[in-house]
């Protein structure tokens, strides 16, 4: 195994990390802005995948255009779901103790899981990749799936888009201000409630988009949201609450770490994200890019 083999492993890890980042960035945004532990974020991801499957039966599969349509149509549906839940449920638990938030959002996750079972049943479903993304390219003597490169690229675009939104736009300024000092923001005449709703809806949109990518990557099934949310929480803790840059770095650490650990310490792969999380909590509890709580 030469250096090119390990470089390919690294690239594969980056691709996996980007897949995690797309979902985890939404959770980080919600957690950072609203200080809400939203277990149901995993359900948004799962429902996004299921909606992509249903839409693909109408739009057809095989063409890049129909897959791009899934990316355009499915996430707003999840954003709408997020909006309705934020207005009806989440607003009531802002500022409440975390245990209450955990209980409510976990109950919501179970409710949404069972709703998905009633609608889509228990079958394993998926979306066929567009033909142009179904193959692979030869890279340094190894095959690299085109779909993985696509996810890597999309993840980078989303990271850039989020940075531009949060640091180069008025809305982003409001979101960051709402994170650090919502009272002051309110005193300046900004509708903080709308800012929070916007952040929540954006988080749901990102989770839905992650679900669309997952539908093309593998198979989707009930309960996949729970596994994803645990991974996302690890990312958010490693990267720091509310930090998109931290979520990106945390996701890449987990993705690359999981890939590179396979050969020397494969049996530790299952616990690697939690070891990383525990180490961060011990050494730097506010995360790599987080801020200490006053």
């Amino acid at each position, binding site marked *: *195994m030469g250096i090119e*083999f390990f470089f*390919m*492993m690294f690239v*594969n*890890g980056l*691709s*996996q990390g980007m*897949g995690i980042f797309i979902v985890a960035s939404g959770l980080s945004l919600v957690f950072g802005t609203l200080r809400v532990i939203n277990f149901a974020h995993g359900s948004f991801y799962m429902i996004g995948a299921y909606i992509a499957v249903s839409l693909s039966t109408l739009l057809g599969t095989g063409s890049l255009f129909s897959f791009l349509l899934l990316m355009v149509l499915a996430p707003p549906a999840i954003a709408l779901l997020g909006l309705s839940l934020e207005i009806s449920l989440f607003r009531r638990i802002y500022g409440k103790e975390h245990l209450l938030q955990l209980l409510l959002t976990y109950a919501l996750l179970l409710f949404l*899981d*069972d709703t998905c*079972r009633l609608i889509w*049943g*228990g*079958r*394993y479903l*998926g979306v066929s990749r567009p033909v142009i993304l*179904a*193959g*692979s390219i030869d890279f340094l003597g*190894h*095959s690299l*799936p*085109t*779909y*993985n490169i696509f996810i890597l690229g999309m993840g980078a675009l989303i990271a850039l888009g989020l940075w531009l939104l949060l640091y180069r736009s008025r809305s982003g300024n409001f979101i960051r201000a709402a994170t650090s000092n919502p009272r002051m923001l309110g005193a300046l005449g900004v509708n903080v409630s709308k800012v929070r709703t916007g952040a929540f809806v954006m988080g749901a949109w990102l989770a839905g988009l992650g679900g669309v990518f*997952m539908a093309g*990557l*593998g*198979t*989707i*099934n*009930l*309960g*996949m949201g*729970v*596994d*994803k949310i645990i991974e996302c929480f690890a990312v958010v803790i490693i990267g720091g609450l509310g930090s998109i840059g931290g979520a990106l770095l945390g996701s890449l650490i987990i*993705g690359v770490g*999981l*890939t590179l*650990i*396979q*050969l020397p310490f*494969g*049996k530790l*792969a*299952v616990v690697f994200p939690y070891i990383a999380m525990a180490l961060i909590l011990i050494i730097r509890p506010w995360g790599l890019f987080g801020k200490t709580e006053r």
Partner: protein
Amino acid sequence: MKNYRSRVFIGILALVVAIGIAQMKNALAADTIKFGFIGDATGTGAELYRGQKQGLDWFFEEANASGGIFGKKLELIVRDAKLKADVGAALARELILDQKVDFLLGGISSAVCLAVSNVAKEFKKPYMIQSTNTSTLVEEAFHKYVAQGQPNTNMLGRGLGYFVGKSGFKSTAYIGNDYTFGHTLWKSYSDYLKKNAPHVELKKSFWAKQGEDDFTPFIQPLMAQNADIVYCTLWGGQLPAFIKQATPYGFFKKSKMATLFDLIVLIGSGTDMPEGLLGYSVAPFYAIPTPEMKVFNEKFYKKYNEWPSDYVILSYDNMKGLTEAIKKAGSTDPDRVMKAIEGLRFVGLRGPMYYRPEDHLSSAGLYMGYTAADPKYPFRILKDVTYVPGEAVWTPVEDLKQLQPKK
């Protein structure tokens, strides 16, 4: 005063009605034999659960239509353990203590079944394992109230080891789930090869968490093993996901893969499934040659517009075995029924089979074959199928005695 008297009267009336309803329920209950099914309806096992439920519903409908057992109807009470062992154990207690079930029926997850088996042992309640393969249930964790109706992990691993050993493969690697099911399969497979086919080099084993959906970290390192054949024991939705993700890496051009090809995986992969993969099934509807299976297939397809999965067939056969044991015992007494199971011979959809007295393990075997297209079905099936009888690959009695708890 008048109000007080009315309230007392209404309270007493309500109490009498409540007692009456409870007595009626008990009276009805006394006319039924209750079976508590702890399945895994949520999560990656959902589709397998659906098959189990279909098989159970079919059997119960048939049995009750022909008068039940001893003139009593069979009643099925269903619970969802959600693949969680602690939930399964709590549900088992609830079924035994509150619902007063006579028998427990197993789900999919090995971890759940092991936890429920402990509860069954504690309360001396017969527990029929319908689909879970882990051999631990009838070996290290065996007790007199448990029975297993399908080839277990030791049998599957040995069966595949036998085929790999004689098929000219020179090296093998492994990928499975990091829990008891995955580990027992690897152990039985690798132990068999070490003992009987030492010319097959054992490469690395890789462990994915249960519920893993992205196999990107595993595929390249697995390919780097340059193994002739990879034994993959991922199951449920994970296996089609692995196949979908591994194909663009050129995985199947480099190595053969061997795995469990139940109907759910075959349908889930559709024509994405490569042909020529070696694998096994424990109840392939298309390859079981019995007349009972043929009739069942036609009736099932007519009713559900789909073919019966392995889990439908296993559940049906397990109920057949259990009810035959109840009839032989002449009672639902747990000790008498479990005594009746020992050596019990009966005919199920899979043909004639019996339960070995030493571990209550069914003699039903496995079906080895190669994936191939068939014009009758929109999915691959196994062809060139060889039936491996259970007796050829189950743990020998002398080894069993070393593994089972001492009495």
